[in-house]
């Protein structure tokens, strides 16, 4: 049984609350990413799971056992640190073998295990070097090797790829994912890079200011953001969010006023439950806006301001009603001149309505 369950986990440093009432469960073989901006409490949460910080309130349950009181060394977990925490006085091989001393293996077994993970992570040639003498990518792999060399309850990764350059990050990402897939352990990865989270995780927990805002699959957080924060945090280019006044809504069609101009949108039927004349936030992915040739009740009238070719597509910054900035992604073939008027239609599948509290309105 390799699961992690957090119940109402809270950590306060004096009056500052780093993590507040966090609930999360990770099942065996599942990879969960803790994603959020710097200082949102994700590392603190990971350290509480590891036992490096003591929870102020709530429970940490690993493998079905409550672990709150146990120090890190009795929780049987493996962790990869942000700066790898390689023991500077030991060789790579000795570093990897370090967790094995606890299991009291024979030297032969131990070196066989080290050899095996070194093979997996392509470290065989550097086993005799000191950490100061190897490259960043190798250090990263040593840190992973040290984690997988034994059979822990779960894996924890703290910003594992943050110190690598873009290319290396890409390869390491797939390598780590590959390694993890073969292990069927509960894994928690802390990252502030959404691409990392989206590619590596089975589920993503998005955190802000110590609270978990949403836990869902990569597809889920992208397609069905639970609130304005998640909507704005996930996806590049960022989702367009604008405030509007709801006039009336029925049967999946809503009439709103956006910057003085009326607009008719296809929305989730649940919008109908909102009181008329309430403030809402409309979120539309840049790829969910399509320029059409003529103005219509369901289009927003804007003017192109800045054009950024992105290769396959083109990103256009447009000026909308009430001087709002909107981003539109159009296919490469579509040519737009600066100052040209654009009438944008919203794709109902990529249009989200958030209520005055910022929560998504959905069935």
């Amino acid at each position, binding site marked *: 049984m390799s699961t992690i369950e957090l119940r109402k986990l809270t950590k306060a440093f004096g009056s500052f609350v780093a993590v507040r009432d966090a609930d999360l469960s990770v099942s065996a073989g599942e990879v969960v990413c803790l994603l959020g901006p710097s200082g949102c409490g994700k590392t603190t949460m990971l350290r509480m799971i590891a036992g490096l910080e003591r929870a102020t309130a709530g429970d940490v349950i690993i493998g079905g056992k409550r672990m709150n009181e146990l120090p890190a060394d009795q929780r*049987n977990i493996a962790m990869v640190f942000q700066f790898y925490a390689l023991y500077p006085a030991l060789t790579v091989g000795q570093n990897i073998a370090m967790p094995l001393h606890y299991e009291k293996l024979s030297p032969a077994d131990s070196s066989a295990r080290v050899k095996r993970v070194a093979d997996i992570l392509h470290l065989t040639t550097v086993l005799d070097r000191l950490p100061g003498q190897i490259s960043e990518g190798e250090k990263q792999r040593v840190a992973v090797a040290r984690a997988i060399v034994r059979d822990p309850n779960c894996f924890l990764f703290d910003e594992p790829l943050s110190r690598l350059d873009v290319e290396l990050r890409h390869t390491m990402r797939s390598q780590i994912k590959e390694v993890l897939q073969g292990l069927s352990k509960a894994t928690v990865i802390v990252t502030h890079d959404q691409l990392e989270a989206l590619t590596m995780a089975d589920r993503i927990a998005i955190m802000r200011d110590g609270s978990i805002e949403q836990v869902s699959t990569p597809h889920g957080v992208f397609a069905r953001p639970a609130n304005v924060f998640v909507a704005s945090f996930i996806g590049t280019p960022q989702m367009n969010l604008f405030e509007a006044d709801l006039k009336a809504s029925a049967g999946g069609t809503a009439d709103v006023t956006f910057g003085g101009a009326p607009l008719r949108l296809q929305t989730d039927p649940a919008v109908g439950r909102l009181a008329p004349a309430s403030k809402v936030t409309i979120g539309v992915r840049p790829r969910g806006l399509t320029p059409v040739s003529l103005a219509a009740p369901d289009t927003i009238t804007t003017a192109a301001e800045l054009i950024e070719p992105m290769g396959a597509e083109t990103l256009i910054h447009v000026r909308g009603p009430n001087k709002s900035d909107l981003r539109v992604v159009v296919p490469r073939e579509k040519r737009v001149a600066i100052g040209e008027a654009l009438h944008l239609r919203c794709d109902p599948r990529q249009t989200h309505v958030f209520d005055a509290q910022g929560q998504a309105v959905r069935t």
Partner: protein
Amino acid sequence: MCRSACVGLRAKGNNATADFLGMLHMTTTALPPPPTAPDAPAFLTPALDNWRGAIAAALVLSVIAIAALPAAAAFWTVGALVALVAATFVVNAFRRHYYGGLLVAPAIAMLFVMNIFPLLWSLGLSFFAYQSNRQTMKFVGLHNYIQALTSDIKAPENWANLQTTAVFVVCTVAAQMLVGFLLALLFAKQFPLRRYLLILVLTPMMLSVVAVGVFYTYYYDPTFGLVSQVVNRMCGCQYVLMSNRAGAIGGIVFADAWMWSPFVMLLVLAGLVSVPKYLYEAASIDRVSSWRSFWTITFPYIRGLLMLALLFRTIEAFKLADLVILLTKGGNGTMTISYHVLRIAQEQNKTSEGAALSYLLLFVVIVLTNLYLYVANRRSQEA
């Protein structure tokens, strides 16, 4: 950018000294070579940066001055010539952009004048028969050294004093390292009031040696002393700590170790608090036992400092004289070689004999230091 490679290369050299420093992670950062400078002046050009010429001229003139002029005038002449040579070096360095040399020059000059020159002076003196209270001087070659090593009156005494010194060095350095290390472990945590308690432990090394010595005679005094009073009360007997050799040595070692353990503690503590915390966290996740994590994580961090502390304290222990003078006057088999040198050179005014003995002592210290550096270095390369 060859920084780490350069260090690595140097650390593999055979010179024990350089290795030791390499072991201490003394990294050096090389700068790109300075922009092209004018060529050095020819040997015979009378230029202010012609240091080769200046050295040659100064040597010749010095010899003439020493031979021809009265002592005081010769002194000043030679001094002026040395200053001239130094000036040519500085001008040379300046013209050719040897900034390293310019930066180091004041320190070297200071050390030369105040340390190295007097040392050479007394080295020279050790080849003469010279007593400072009698103004006659006669060249005797190695006589003073031979006497110190073979004379049937002086040699056994020197040898016995050296042995006593060895006992002191071993005991007091061991005690200081142990106590200092334990104290450092005690303070290597963050706890309430740590700041205030730490300064209490650091205080002994700020005291004046005279006061410490005098007050320890008071603590050890059989009639008035606190130690004796406590022991007398407990055993009901008459306790005299310094009445035999073991007691006298123990008493001096205790006072010395008490005074200087904080020094070791300071160095070790500095090492302990600079171990990154995340290494301990990783170790606890990897379920490394605390014994093992001490040897694999903590010890590598403080090893350099422990060795440095050991080196500093050993050198100082060889010079142990003040506490001996204050506590026993060298009685009860506590006569150290340094006190012996002090008596010969200072009280009995046998300056050249004292100098010779000092250089023999320096030789012992340097041999031991290098031996120690060699061993330390071997250990660090194995690790």
